[in-house]
């Protein structure tokens, strides 16, 4: 019971502080919108070509905007020393992980809620189809699961803002391939069977890495 209460407290604290400052959300959203706008002008897309490049544009924008949010979420805790305050509490440290991961997930979903309709207008492609939204959701969960662990590792390093993408992106390759290929398959009018194979990869990745993060987070935050 204490575990879930602590997890909820950490999540709620992050959301409440972010609601007041909008530090993380604003940075992520501006970055994502700029990336989409630049791609839009750079490719000068017609409808057929838009479908080919849109999955890549979408996931590049989501992943790099998400990276900004991940960096900020642990750097703020670390620099103020407030991470020690949480670590002093008699609760399992995986509650800290889960609370932070949920916070990161909510911030990313909030950015996607604004980003996807704008992409739909700019590229004139319906990206709000249920199948695409499932890929976006599972991919975002995978990103938040792995990203939260790696953000906690990177925050202890000297070049932490550079270190996070260097550590995280190679591990994220299966998620990115599955999410981009799956999204492309939906836009190409592929079959449910073809999409299911990519969804299975995303689901398996999410479950496996959630388990690994739970087991290792205690060691990650140890000084």
């Amino acid at each position: 019971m204490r575990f879930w209460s602590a997890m909820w407290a950490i999540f709620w604290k992050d959301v409440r502080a972010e609601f007041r400052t909008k530090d993380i959300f604003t940075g992520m959203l501006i970055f994502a919108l700029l990336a989409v706008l630049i791609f839009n002008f750079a490719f000068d897309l017609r409808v057929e070509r838009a479908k080919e490049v849109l999955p890549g544009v979408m996931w590049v924008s989501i992943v790099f905007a998400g990276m900004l949010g991940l960096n900020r979420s642990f750097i703020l805790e670390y620099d103020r020393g407030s991470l020690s305050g949480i670590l002093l509490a008699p609760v399992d440290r995986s509650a800290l992980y889960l609370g932070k991961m949920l916070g990161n997930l909510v911030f990313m979903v909030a950015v996607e809620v604004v980003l996807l309709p704008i992409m739909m207008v700019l590229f004139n492609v319906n990206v709000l189809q249920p199948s695409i939204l499932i890929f976006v959701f599972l991919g975002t969960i995978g990103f938040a699961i792995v990203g939260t662990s790696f953000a906690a590792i990177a925050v202890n390093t000297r070049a932490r803002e550079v270190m996070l993408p260097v550590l995280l992106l190679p591990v994220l390759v299966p998620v990115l391939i599955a999410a981009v290929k799956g999204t492309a398959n939906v836009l190409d009018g592929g079959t449910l069977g073809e999409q299911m194979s990519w969804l299975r990869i995303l689901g398996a990745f999410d479950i496996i890495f959630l388990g690994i993060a739970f087991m290792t987070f205690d060691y990650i935050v140890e000084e």
Partner: protein
Amino acid sequence: MIHVRGLVKRFGYTIVLRGISIDIQAGETVVLLGPNGAGKTTFLRILATLLKPNAGRVTVAGKDIVREPHKVRHLLGYVSHQTLLYPDLSARENLRFYARLYGLPHADERIQEMLALVGLGKRADDLVRTFSRGMLQRLTIARALLHNPPILLLDEPDTGLDPQAAAMLARLLRDVAGEGRTILLTTHNISRGIDFADRVIVLSRGRIVADRPSSDLTPHDLSEFYLNAVTQEAA
């Protein structure tokens, strides 16, 4: 209450604590003095279960800090020179957050009581980022005492405070010490240390070089005693 035997802590090739052994009884107030880099903060962070020792054994109320860290954390309140507070939450929200982490029943009453104790009752709903350094440090004490721990670890709590705020903090700590808690305090302020403590321990280069009851010492004696102890160790 706190038993430390042969405590060693290394960071890479640097040995910060070199076999410290010490016993602190329940209700005792101990001041830990030492120059910068002596290992005071590391020692307190190990007691607080934030760091693991490389060798030696530390027990708090009979509980091993490495094997039973959760039980030890219930017994400790920790104040460092960083406030461990969230500037974008109000004083009450900060305390409510920590109350949830500690699973406190009747948290709202306890929070109100703590805010009154540290004289911040009227600022309870103001954002912490609007507080002065002195107010922040008082709220930090409230945070550390929220779960009513029998042991309080204070790592240079008066750092960065003006004399008025430091005096107010000292009064608050004296009240807290009067409640029968075991207190271990590090400070650079020798006169405040001797005024406050039952016992003075001097740490230098990771070793205890002196351990005396404070009743044996005047502030002047303590300054000389401290300088001698540290200089001899350095030589």
